[in-house]
């Protein structure tokens, strides 16, 4: 069964550093997403991406965040200057035209 692949599975970074979280969506999906989940809390929408541009973003997705699809397969989330409160599980997801969403295994980001 097709999978969404996320790397790395766990990243530790110092406050103020830039991080890039990587995702390979399912190849025939056209809609891509980033969500985050702070430990013990609900899953929160960050951003959606379609046709090489952001289609919607949440209030959380401020100027510190950016997304990119640098080639035909990768989809990345960049956090420019990490803060302690950015520590969370970050999930990439992609969906097909029939609203079938598939999530990756997540990247656990720890900011120290």
């Amino acid at each position, binding site marked *: 069964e097709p999978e969404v692949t996320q790397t790395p599975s766990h990243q530790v970074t110092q406050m103020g550093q830039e991080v890039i979280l990587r995702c390979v969506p399912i190849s025939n999906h056209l*809609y891509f*997403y980033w*969500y985050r*989940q702070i430990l013990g*809390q*609900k*899953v*929160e*929408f960050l951003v*959606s991406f*379609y046709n090489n541009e952001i*289609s*919607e973003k*949440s209030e959380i997705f401020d100027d510190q965040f950016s997304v990119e699809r640098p080639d035909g397969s990768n989809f990345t989330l960049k956090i420019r200057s990490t803060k302690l409160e950015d520590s969370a*599980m970050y*999930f990439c*997801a992609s969906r097909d035209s029939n*609203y*079938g*969403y*598939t*999530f990756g*295994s*997540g990247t*656990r980001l720890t900011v120290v």
Partner: protein
Amino acid sequence: AQTVTQSQPEMSVQEAETVTLSCTYDTSESDYYLFWYKQPPSRQMILVIRQEAYKQQNATENRFSVNFQKAAKSFSLKISDSQLGDAAMYFCAYSYFGNEKLTFGTGTRLTIIP
């Protein structure tokens, strides 16, 4: 704004018994999708079941079934013959046609008692 409410933070059930997890949602849309996701300790998000609002028939996937009450905006998940591997956090989620994002509830932690 669309909201999803899960009023049971925790539930427990005896192995082999049946348990029902509750979910209500608020929307003014007529064409939408509802989902239940399972999140085990590994924290991966696994789709359990989905329901299209235009379908009157309740979705089923093996031991998992839903009770979709569109007028009441209720979408409960029934797990039959509970197994130890069902222990996880369960999230109800909503999306509507033409919208991109999934909106999640706060989750219900399900414990299976051997």
